[in-house]
């Protein structure tokens, strides 16, 4: 447990982000005690209540799609950890299917690359991808901005957030980030347990935590449950044969590697993996124990036992699944602050 106590002593950082002159300064973003320091460049995008509100409105705004039918929130739904519930690969405008499973939106201020392949390196630029993707929102940023300018509502919201009614790409994207970085999940039973906030874990859950730290945390590391690296966890190369990180870098060494996803709220973010191939956590554990394939660039960690993968008895798999369920953060999933008005 030494790692946990180390996390506990890490400083509580508070970003006081209110605009000058705001009478009742509100804290919009706090670093949980068991989290490392965030990487998002807050100094370039000072947060205000009006900015966060604008970002939330945009996130739920169907004008962002070509036929004004579809918003970000359709594929990133709060009760399911901001994923596209029940879809292996996301369906967008005109019910067109993508090839990737929607990622959960949480703790984004700690990420330095986005999407399964890390194609975008700055949260501020993320919204452009779904807006302009033909199978997601199918629009152009220019049209979206023009549509927003033509409304009564948005020039006023931009004025509240940025001081004038002007709607620019920069303001639009910064408002999005202001909202998205507020999506911090740090109140799961696990968090309260490691922060000594009076929470206990059952013996089964504690056994699962121990096993997880031995067998999974080299990749799903630390308080965020990811080391932010790109790895091949031995999935069978199937379907569209997604090359993952190599799609962006075109490098052999990156073929079939994907960003190690966080496992926070994982019990509600199924189906799992970049293409949503596993419907249950049990199926994921079976994969690590029995299904790991020797494909190009398979991670060395999964080569250590004969027959590949991670040695796990059936009982151990159950214990790990029990532990993973302690990562569900009801406060986060139900927080009204994040929900559309």
């Amino acid at each position, binding site marked *: 447990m030494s790692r946990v106590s180390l996390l506990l002593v890490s400083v509580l950082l508070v970003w006081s982000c209110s605009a000058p002159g705001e009478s009742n300064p509100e804290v919009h973003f706090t670093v949980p005690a068991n989290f490392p320091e965030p990487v998002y460049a807050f100094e370039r995008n000072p947060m205000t209540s009006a900015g966060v509100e604008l970002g939330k409105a945009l996130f739920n705004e169907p004008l962002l799609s070509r036929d004004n039918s579809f918003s970000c929130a359709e594929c990133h739904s709060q009760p399911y950890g901001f994923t596209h519930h029940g879809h292996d690969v996301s369906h967008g405008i005109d019910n067109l299917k993508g090839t990737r499973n929607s990622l959960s939106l949480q703790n984004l201020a700690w990420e330095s690359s986005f999407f399964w392949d890390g194609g*975008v*390196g700055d949260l501020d630029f993320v919204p452009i991808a779904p807006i302009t993707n033909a199978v997601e929102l199918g629009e152009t940023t220019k049209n979206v901005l023009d549509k927003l300018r033509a409304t009564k509502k948005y020039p006023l919201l931009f004025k509240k957030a940025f001081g004038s009614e002007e709607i620019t790409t*920069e303001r639009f994207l910064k408002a999005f980030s202001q909202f998205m970085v507020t999506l911090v999940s740090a109140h799961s039973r696990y968090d309260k347990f490691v922060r000594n906030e009076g929470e206990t874990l059952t013996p089964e859950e504690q056994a699962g935590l121990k096993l997880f730290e031995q067998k999974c945390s080299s990749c799903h590391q630390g308080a965020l449950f990811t080391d932010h690296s790109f790895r091949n966890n031995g999935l069978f190369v199937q379907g569209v044969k997604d090359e993952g990180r190599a799609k962006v870098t075109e490098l052999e060494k990156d073929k079939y590697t994907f960003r190690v996803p966080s496992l926070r709220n994982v019990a509600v973010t199924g189906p799992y993996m970049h293409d949503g191939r596993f419907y249950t956590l049990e199926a994921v554990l079976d994969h690590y124990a029995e299904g790991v394939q020797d494909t190009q660039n398979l991670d060395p960690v999964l080569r250590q036992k004969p027959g590949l993968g991670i040695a796990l008895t059936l009982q151990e798999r159950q214990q790990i699944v029990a532990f993973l369920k302690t990562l569900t953060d009801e406060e986060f999933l139900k927080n009204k602050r994040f929900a559309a008005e």
Partner: protein
Amino acid sequence: MKFHSFLFINFLIISGILSSCTKENPTPVTEGDSNDVILEFDNRVGAQKLVLGETLYQTGTGESFTVSTFNYFVSNVSLKKTDGSNIKFPDQYFLIRQADNNSWEPVLKNVPAGDYQEITFTIGVDSTKSVSPVGERKGVLDEGSYGDDGMYWSWNSGYIFLKLEGTSPAAPANGAGIRRFQMHVGGFGGMTSATINNLRTVTLPFPQNQLATVRKTVAPTIHVIANLQKIFSGKTTVKIADTPAIHMPAAAVPLANNYVHMFTVDHTHNE
């Protein structure tokens, strides 16, 4: 009589143009003076003017094609004086779009008075700018300004340095029976790991006796011809039939290596 005066006026105009192109004794340089330098990008296909739409052109290998879109970024311009010193214009990005004649003649402001003999520029958007914060992406770098004629790859956060699109009988027909080809070149070298870098820099000495003489009252124009035929043949042969759709940096390398040979300075005007 009428006919004669018409000819005479024509003669006056033509000789006026000729003399201004070859001004022989520019006034001496006064320290501290400056003026604009206009870069005129004149896009052509071989010896023909580039006109978007129906006109059929030929590549060096005899594939015929039309052009619907031709855009490219020019950045990091520097001008070399006759004394060998360089004047740089960092943080200025120009997007030449054949569809918009207002974009063909970007202006360098506050160029120090002097005699210039050579221009260098980058085709594309350098890596520093390609990873810069959104607040530093204004004007032609603003993704929200492009509309349907995008110059940005959202999936790898990079600009499209050069875009050539059109139709060609050598390209396969799509569902609607249209034979489109699309050549998009980008790739700034990667955010974290080193990836394909298709940034190319060209240096173009001005032709003999053609200096750009910047003076308090002289704002020269540097007339650059871009021969897009060279995209198919500048260094190696690229056939539309083989690669009708290029959308990734690695596949675009031959195009970038070809189009560095696309530019020439035809002449300068000192007016």
